[in-house]
C-alpha cells in the first residue's frame, strides 16, 4: 500500500507499464499527473495522480464533494483542469481538437450517476444515438437493430427496446445506460457512482453486470464510488481521494486493514 501525503508526489510507475498477475505487462490506458482544479476558492483537485492499466478494474473512492466526478469529467474533456496532464490511450486530452476528441470518446464508455438517458427518446433511440457520429467504427451498418439488441441482451433488457425511459425503474435505467455505453464497444468504461440511489439487491445486480461485461469485453474500468461493498467486490486496485489528492493506494484488503485514521474512516461500518 502507498500513502501520498505530499501534494506533488506521484506513484506512477515508470514508462506506464505494470506486471499483471500472470506476469505479462499491462499498458497504461489512462494517466493523470498533478491535476489541479478549483471552482473559485473551492480547491477540488490539488495535484491528483492516477494510472489505469489495460484490462484493470480501478476504484477511486472519496467522500461526497471530494472531486471524484470532477476528475472523471476532466478525463473525457467535459471539464478542463486548471493545470496538470491527462492522457487517454496515448493522447493528451488538452491538445486534441473537437474531431479527434470525439474519435477518442468513441473508445470511452461513460456511465453517468443518474443514468442520463435521453427522456424524449425510446430505449432503441437512446442506444442508436451514439452510433450517429461513429458509423465508420461500426462498419457503416444500415440496420442497427442487431447491435441494439446485442447491447440490450448483455444487460438482460431486450424486451424494453420500445419503451420510454420514464417507463423503466431506477435499476433498469442504469442497465439501459450501461447498454448505451457498450454500444460502441469501448476499450475503457468510466462508471460514475454506478450503484448510488439503488436498493442493495439492484446494486448487487449492477455490480455483477459490470464484472460480466469486463470479463466478456476485456475493458479497462475506472469506477468512482463511495460504496464500500461495490469497491470490495469489483476492485483490483483502489485509490482513496482525500483533500484533492490520491491519499492512499492499494488493494481492498490492504486499505481496509490500514490503521491510518483517514483511511479507516472509509471502511468503518
Amino acid at each position, binding site marked *: 500500500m502507498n500513502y501520498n501525503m505530499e501534494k506533488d508526489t506521484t506513484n506512477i510507475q515508470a514508462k506506464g507499464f505494470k506486471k499483471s498477475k500472470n506476469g505479462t505487462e499491462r499498458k497504461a490506458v489512462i494517466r493523470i499527473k498533478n491535476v489541479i482544479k478549483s471552482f473559485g476558492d473551492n480547491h477540488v483537485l490539488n495535484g491528483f495522480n492516477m494510472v489505469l492499466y489495460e484490462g484493470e478494474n480501478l476504484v477511486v473512492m472519496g467522500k461526497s464533494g471530494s472531486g471524484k466526478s470532477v476528475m472523471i*469529467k476532466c478525463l*473525457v474533456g*467535459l471539464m478542463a483542469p486548471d493545470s496538470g496532464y491527462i492522457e487517454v490511450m496515448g493522447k493528451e486530452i488538452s491538445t486534441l481538437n*473537437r474531431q479527434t476528441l*470525439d*474519435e477518442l*470518446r*468513441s473508445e*470511452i464508455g*461513460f456511465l*453517468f*450517476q*443518474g443514468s*442520463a*438517458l*435521453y*427522456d*424524449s427518446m425510446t430505449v432503441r433511440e437512446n442506444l442508436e*444515438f*451514439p452510433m*450517429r*457520429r*461513429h458509423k465508420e467504427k461500426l462498419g457503416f451498418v444500415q440496420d442497427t437493430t442487431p447491435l441494439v439488441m446485442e447491447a440490450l441482451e448483455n444487460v438482460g433488457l431486450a424486451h424494453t427496446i420500445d419503451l420510454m425511459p420514464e417507463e423503466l425503474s431506477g435499476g433498469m435505467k442504469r442497465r439501459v445506460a450501461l447498454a*448505451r455505453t457498450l454500444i460502441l464497444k469501448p476499450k475503457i468504461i468510466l462508471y460514475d457512482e454506478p450503484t448510488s440511489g439503488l436498493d442493495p439487491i439492484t446494486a448487487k445486480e449492477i455490480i455483477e453486470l459490470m464484472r460480466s461485461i469486463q470479463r466478456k469485453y476485456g475493458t479497462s474500468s475506472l469506477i468512482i464510488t463511495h460504496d464500500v461493498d461495490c469497491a470490495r467486490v469489483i476492485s483490483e486496485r483502489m485509490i482513496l481521494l482525500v483533500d484533492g489528492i490520491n491519499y492512499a493506494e492499494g488493494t481492498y484488503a490492504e486499505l481496509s486493514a490500514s490503521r491510518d485514521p483517514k483511511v479507516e474512516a472509509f471502511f468503518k461500518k
Partner: protein
Amino acid sequence: MADSTKTVFAKSKLVGRIKQFFIQIGELSYFAGRFFKEIFTAPFEFKELLRQCYQMGNRSLVLVCMTGFIIGLVLTLQSRPTMIQFGAVSMMPNMVGISIVREIGPVITALICAGRIASGIGAELGSMKVTEQIDAMEVSGTNPFKYLVVTRILATTLMIPILVVFGDLIALFGSALVENLKGQVSFQLYFNTVFDALSFGDLVPATIKSFFFGFVIGLVGCFKGFNSKKGTAGVGIAANTAVVMASLLLFVVDFIAVFISDIFYEL
C-alpha cells in the same frame, strides 16, 4: 448612520444588478455568436430541425389561432361604436386589417410563443443539463450545441413567421365574423376591402420582424436552458426567466423594427 448604511447597501445592490444585466447581455451575445458560427459548419442536423419545426409549429398552431380569433373579435367589437360615432364604420376592415398585419398579429403571436415555446425550451434544456443528458450527448460524440441549440433557434426563426400568417388570417376572420353579424358585410367584401387597404410596405416589415421575433424566442429559451444551474430549482428559474427575457426583448426588437421601417416610409 443607519440611513447611510442602508443607502450604501442599496447602491451596491443596484450596481450589482446593473453589472449582472451587462454580463447577461454579453453572455447572450456570445451565445448568439456561437450559433452563427455553428450554423454553417457540418454536420447538419436536418432530421432534428424538422422534428423541432413540427413540434413548435404544429403544437402552437391551435393556441395561436384561438388567440388570433379572439383578438379579431374583440378589436372589432371594441372599435365599432367609436367608428360609428365618427361615421367611419365602412373603414373598419381597413383599420383592423392594417393594425393586425402590421403590429397586433406579429406581437401577440410572438408573445404567445414566448410563453409557450421559450419556457418549453428553457425547461427542457434545463432539465437535460441537470440530469447530465447534455454531458452524455457530448461524450457520445454529438455536439449538443449543434443538436439542441442550433436546431431549436432555426426552428423558431422559421416557424414564428408562419404562425404569424395563420394568426393574422384567423384574426381577420374573427373581425369579418363580427362585421358580418353586426353590419351585414359579406365575407367577400370584407376581405376584398382588407386586401385593397394592405400594401407591400405593410406586409414586408411585419414578415421580416417576425423572423427576428422567432430568433429571439429560440435564442433566449436555449440560452437560459443551456446555462441553467442550481439543480431542479434552476429548471424552473430557467423556464421563468426565459419567458420574461424573451418578452422584454420582443418589445425592444419591435421598437427597433418600427423605427427602421418608419425611416424607410419617410424616404
